């Protein structure tokens, strides 16, 4: 029991960061599951983070209300981004979204009235790990429902082959626009979660670091099921801490190495529903062959 408490003291904060990262990974997954690779989650996180911090700091709103506003703010930002970005071809969109990450930081730096500029903002309130857990659970529930609804089916079709999906009456634009809205809201929640966890945010909080974490988590965990990004975020956040405990020197290298190993050996990520189907099909074929051999003998 004591060992467990020690473990918690050492790794409790890792779990909190893993949960915050899970929001970013889910936000990336939301658009990736409709075939859109976009780094705009960072922008939505910045909108959510600074909005939430200001709502609490300036206006003294309750944390829960601040989260709500962060989600809505992220969603609105996403609506603007989507209406511009969805005109672009996929690889140009990825590039444009990366540019937006840079623009976000410069904008944040140059609007000290809203973001505190270079000095950043102190966030006077925090949330408990349990509250964050509940919020993540509710968000996960949303993804679960989406996956098992007409939207889920349509988004998978659009991701695999948008042209074919369109000849079945599915509008790829509408599905991807909706995906952006979801990505924006979840990204905004993640930004707020990070703000209340760190209790100090600056333009550099919402920058390349998040972009790398969210893409790595999604690739690692898999982008073909909502459970993938959550698992990915957990492993990707916990791994460096665990590595540090074992071999302190390799912490930074470990992230990169794990990412490369995953991409080489599990290109579709750890959670892959298709792999289960393929294994089942292979087993079935073996069974049929066995039967044939038996009847032969």
């Amino acid at each position, binding site marked *: 029991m004591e060992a467990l408490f020690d473990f918690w003291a050492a790794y409790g904060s890792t779990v909190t960061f893993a949960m915050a990262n899970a929001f970013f990974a889910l936000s990336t997954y939301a658009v990736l599951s409709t075939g859109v690779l976009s780094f705009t989650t960072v922008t939505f996180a910045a909108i959510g983070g600074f909005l939430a911090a200001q709502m609490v700091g300036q206006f003294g709103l309750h944390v829960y209300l601040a989260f709500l506003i962060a989600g809505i703010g992220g969603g609105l930002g996403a609506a603007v981004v989507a209406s511009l970005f969805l005109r672009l071809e996929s690889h140009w969109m990825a590039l444009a979204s990366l540019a937006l990450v840079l623009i976000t930081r410069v904008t944040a730096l140059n609007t000290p009235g809203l973001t505190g500029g270079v000095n950043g903002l102190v966030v006077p309130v925090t949330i408990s790990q349990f509250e964050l857990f509940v919020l993540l659970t509710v968000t996960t529930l949303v993804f679960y429902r989406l996956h098992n*609804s007409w939207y889920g*089916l349509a988004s*998978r079709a659009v991701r695999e082959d948008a042209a074919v999906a369109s*000849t079945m009456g599915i509008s790829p634009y509408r599905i991807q626009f909706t995906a952006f809205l979801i990505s924006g809201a979840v990204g905004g929640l993640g930004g707020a979660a990070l703000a209340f966890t760190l209790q100090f945010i600056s333009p550099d909080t919402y920058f390349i670091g998040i972009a790398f974490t969210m893409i790595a988590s999604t690739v690692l965990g898999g982008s073909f099921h909502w459970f993938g990004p959550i698992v990915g975020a957990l492993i990707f956040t916990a791994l460096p801490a665990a590595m540090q405990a074992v071999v302190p020197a390799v912490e930074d290298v470990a992230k990169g190495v794990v990412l490369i190993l995953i991409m080489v050996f599990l290109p579709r990520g750890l959670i892959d529903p298709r792999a289960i189907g393929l294994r089942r099909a292979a087993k079935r074929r073996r069974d049929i062959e066995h039967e044939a051999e038996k009847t032969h003998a």
Partner: protein
Amino acid sequence: MLEVASQPLLLEVNSVVKRFGGVAAVGGLTAHVRQGSVHGLIGPNGAGKTTLINLITGLLHPDEGQIHFAGRHLEKMKPQQIAGLGITRTYQNVRLFSGMSVLEQVMTGCFLERKAGLFSSFLGLPSARNDWKRVREHAMHLLKRVAMDHTADELAETLSYGEQRRIEIARALGSNPRLLLLDEPTAGMNHAEATAVGLLVHELRDAGITILMVEHNMGLVTEFCDSCTVMNFGQLLAEGDPRSCIANPDVQEAYFGRKNDAERIKSLR
């Protein structure tokens, strides 16, 4: 059998031109498909048949000319709008969705059949659940129709090519289309399988679906098509009754080459 010639026109292709760079893949083609018929679209490779199918379904837009379907202009519409009017299709190279089970493929084809909105479906309201069940049964029924219901839960990409073709037909039937476009539905099939597809096509026609099919098997065309259009180099070569189309000397030449050429080649040996 229906008296096809007296049926009204369902699809009219009027002097349609589609260029890729300098090449006119379809160069001023005019064709007609009557309601309730099985209409064959034939022609040698590169004649522009698949391009025409892509133009009708909105994946490509014509540079010139019009396409009318049941009194509507299709040439500027988006694919999803055209699907909404009741035109669905299959593909020359099977294009099923990777990672989806057979049933999910067909359910996706039923997207327009659903009555529940995306939001009420997300919330899982009782009405939406019932609707989902109804569409699921509809999809299972379609799978039964193409004799693939025993594979409903399997990953479509693990099945054979012929089976995938049948699943694709079931998917195209999902939204109860008025016009079904089949792009080489019997490619890679043996005679028995091809005949089964021909019989299925007749069943569908008798159920009220008009069919336009690209087909290379002349035997199948004469046996199962009520009328046909022959294309060559993006243009109309012949239109009308399949037998007389195939007997047409121009068509014979396009498919089999010139008689003199054959004799000249012989003399060269």
